[in-house]
């Protein structure tokens, strides 16, 4: 604000200048309208995705109810009206099914048809909505505390210039937006990144990585924070929370359907149940909520499934079970295939587009707050060049200003290096004789856990733990200097934590080397590689170039190369060639899904009739 006239405008030729100008108020209005359009699209996508899903889920619900009723009936006779009622419902369902399958449509009474369709679809819809509400309620209660613990966030140190500046800028932007200032948390992560997280504007928090403070000047920082606070003020957190809940509901649905086949899904369900019944506000509970959310958002993936594992173990009993449960297994596949297809082709892209307009809106609002489009623009230009990696930030990737996912996989130390580290660790124990360290069975896993605990203690200010880490580092350096160079010097880590500038620079230099600290969070690294991120046609982060262009229309002067005409032409031609193939594949998948849905319906009906008759016979005998 105060440095408005210090913005340097270099010769016009190098800077991108837009053809049209747009005021930030117009830009906001345009993006608000786009939000409405895209929300309508998302609702449509959710409905289209829901129809096949409910068509498959509803019979399963009926199956469960019918089997339960049969079992109850065996021990304790149910009234005849119940069976009559269920017979009527089944009749309506069959009428609708017949109508769907027949090639030349006979005239059917529309009320009967409507009732039939309702019978086929309503229970599934009801179940999904109930699950969604339950998920929203569950995670709203837990808030974002657990996630913050996972990120190892800390309060800013007001005695340090840059961190004081951060606190000040947040206050300034909150005043400019007329909002209460959100709490700030700092993360000591290797990437330069920032996010506003929370479930709504009331519990919003701003998360900033320390590196962002070091890399941006005051105007740029102001732009970034204006974007985040404007995003909170525009109500984006609520939207993001709903989107996450949507994906988690899908995950819960899959877990429910998988639960007869695999221990992993049962474990998730059990943890959710335990979490929702145990009322406690401790940190452990918050962490539990974060862990559950993580598991749920993962279980929609097609890989590493319980059901695959179920088939892997071959035995006579298993084959018998497979035969008996075949309709349910088929239904399971149909559900997962349609979930995977529709969420990747339809729902995720439309949600991503919706999220893009929210980002553009927040950019326009940020310009309104700072009245300095160049601050945000040059911040985005810097962030574009740098890694934005935040360990533990995957679950909220869409909330960060740039994607926090690691760009490459961290190399794990090989066996020899592991032994070196383990030996050094054993030797660093204060009361152990240096010569007594055993070489044979070294429990690297156990050592890693100890090491993580010690690091946590050291960062909390435990002098003994700090000493031990120092000894460890020296020991490793004595045995294998190259290996030691991969790790940050503990002294620098502690000094950086206190806000020492030169230590921070040394750490930065050590990061430039290929290996980022594998010791920082070994358990997190392991789980991350096992999960495949859900793929989608459109990413949740809009392209920086497009954002910069929009900022330029509002008066910023970013350094952008003029768009490459030839490149776009080539891309268009490639798209034109491959689009028919893509459509063909999509059509084929749709056909497969519809076949599977109908097949699973038919099999399920036969299966149910069989079971029902068997129970009838049992009852008569």
């Amino acid at each position, binding site marked *: 604000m105060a*440095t408005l006239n210090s913005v340097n405008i270099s010769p016009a030729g190098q800077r991108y200048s837009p053809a049209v100008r747009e005021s930030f108020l117009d830009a906001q209005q345009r993006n608000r309208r786009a939000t409405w359009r895209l929300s309508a699209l998302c609702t449509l996508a959710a409905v289209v995705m829901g129809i096949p899903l409910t068509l498959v889920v509803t019979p399963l619900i009926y199956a469960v109810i019918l089997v339960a009723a049969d079992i109850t009936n065996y021990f304790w006779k149910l009234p005849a009206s119940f069976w009559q009622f269920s017979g009527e419902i089944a009749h309506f369902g069959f009428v609708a099914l017949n109508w769907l399958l027949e090639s030349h449509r006979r005239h059917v009474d529309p009320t009967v048809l409507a009732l039939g369709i309702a019978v086929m679809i309503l229970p599934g819809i009801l179940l999904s909505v109930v699950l969604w509400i339950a998920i929203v309620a569950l995670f709203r209660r837990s808030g974002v505390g657990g996630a913050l613990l996972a990120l190892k966030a800390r309060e800013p140190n007001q005695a340090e*210039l840059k961190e004081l500046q951060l606190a000040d800028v947040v206050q300034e932007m909150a005043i*400019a937006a*007329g909002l209460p200032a959100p709490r700030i948390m700092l993360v000591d992560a290797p990437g330069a990144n920032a996010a506003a997280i929370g479930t709504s504007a009331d519990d919003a928090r701003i998360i900033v990585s320390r590196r962002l403070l070091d890399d941006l000047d*005051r105007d740029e920082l102001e732009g970034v924070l204006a974007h985040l606070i404007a995003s909170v003020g525009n109500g984006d957190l609520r939207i993001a929370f709903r989107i996450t809940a949507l994906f988690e509901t899908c995950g819960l649905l899959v877990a429910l359907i998988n639960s007869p086949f695999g221990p992993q899904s049962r474990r998730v369900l059990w943890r959710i149940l335990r979490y929702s019944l145990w009322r406690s506000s401790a940190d452990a509970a918050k962490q539990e909520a974060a862990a559950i959310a993580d598991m749920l958002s993962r279980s929609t993936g097609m890989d590493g499934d319980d059901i695959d594992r179920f088939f892997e173990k071959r035995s006579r009993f298993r084959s018998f079970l497979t035969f008996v449960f075949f309709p349910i297994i088929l239904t399971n596949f149909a559900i997962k295939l349609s979930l995977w297809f529709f969420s990747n082709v339809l729902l995720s892209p439309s949600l991503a587009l919706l999220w893009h307009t929210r980002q553009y809106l927040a950019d326009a609002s940020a310009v309104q707050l700072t009245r300095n489009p160049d601050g945000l623009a040059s911040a985005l230009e810097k962030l574009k060049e740098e890694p934005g990696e935040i360990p533990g930030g995957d679950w909220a990737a869409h909330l960060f200003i740039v994607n926090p996912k690691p760009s490459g996989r961290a190399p794990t130390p090989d066996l020899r290096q592991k032994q070196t580290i383990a030996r050094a660790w054993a030797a660093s124990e204060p009361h152990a004789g240096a010569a007594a360290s055993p070489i044979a069975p070294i429990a690297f896993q156990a050592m890693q856990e100890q090491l993580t605990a010690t690091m946590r203690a050291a960062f909390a200010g435990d002098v003994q733990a700090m000493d031990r880490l120092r000894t460890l580092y020296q020991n490793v350096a004595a045995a294998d200097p190259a290996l030691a160079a991969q790790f940050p010097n503990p002294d620098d880590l502690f000094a950086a934590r206190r806000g020492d500038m030169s230590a921070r620079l040394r750490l930065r230099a050590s990061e430039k080397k290929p290996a980022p600290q594998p010791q920082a969070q070994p358990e997190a690294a392991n789980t991350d590689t096992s999960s495949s991120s859900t793929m989608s046609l459109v990413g949740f982060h809009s392209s920086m170039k497009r954002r910069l262009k929009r900022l330029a229309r509002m008066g910023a002067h970013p350094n952008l190369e003029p768009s490459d005409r030839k490149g776009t032409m080539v891309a268009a031609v490639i798209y034109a060639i491959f689009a028919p193939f893509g459509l063909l594949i999509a059509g084929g998948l749709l056909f497969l899904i519809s076949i599977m849905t109908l097949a699973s319906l038919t099999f399920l009906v036969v299966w149910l009739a069989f079971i029902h008759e068997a129970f009838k016979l049992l009852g008569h005998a």
Partner: protein
Amino acid sequence: MSTGLIVIGVVALVLVWVVATFNRLVALRNRVQNGWAEIDVQLKRRHDLVPSLVETVRGYMEHERSVLETVTQARFGAVAAGNNVLERSVAESALTAALTGLFARVENYPQLQAVESTQLLQEQLTSIENRIAFARQFYNDEVMKYNTAQTTFPRNLFAGMLGFSSASMFTATEGDRAVAQVKLSA
């Protein structure tokens, strides 16, 4: 019979609209008042900050007694100005000008600039000036929304009757314009 129903329906619709308009205008007016109060809060914060600032730099700036004296005097003037808007804005502008003068001098003392506590103070002062500016900006934006809501058709027919009048913007005085020419931030 049916015409009577239609008339009743139209009257009810108009009433609902008037109530909605009234509530919207009240909400906007409250935001304007809130914006004004925020400027006040930030100005008070500046009054509280000035003494510690002067204490910190006093040791290094023995030769600049007059500058420090001006700042202290200006602060007294601003605190004493009370609630009269005109007097107050003059006094606050004087304080802004005095602080600007002080910071222009501080830049001549490299050893002072190197002290960390000065840097922190300078940051605080930059921030307080920014906060005042942003509070004004917010206030003016809200005044604009409030006035637009009142003066557009058909609300302008009712706004006066319901007891709303247009609010006035916070305009910069000559002293403030001078401040804008000086780079404040570190």
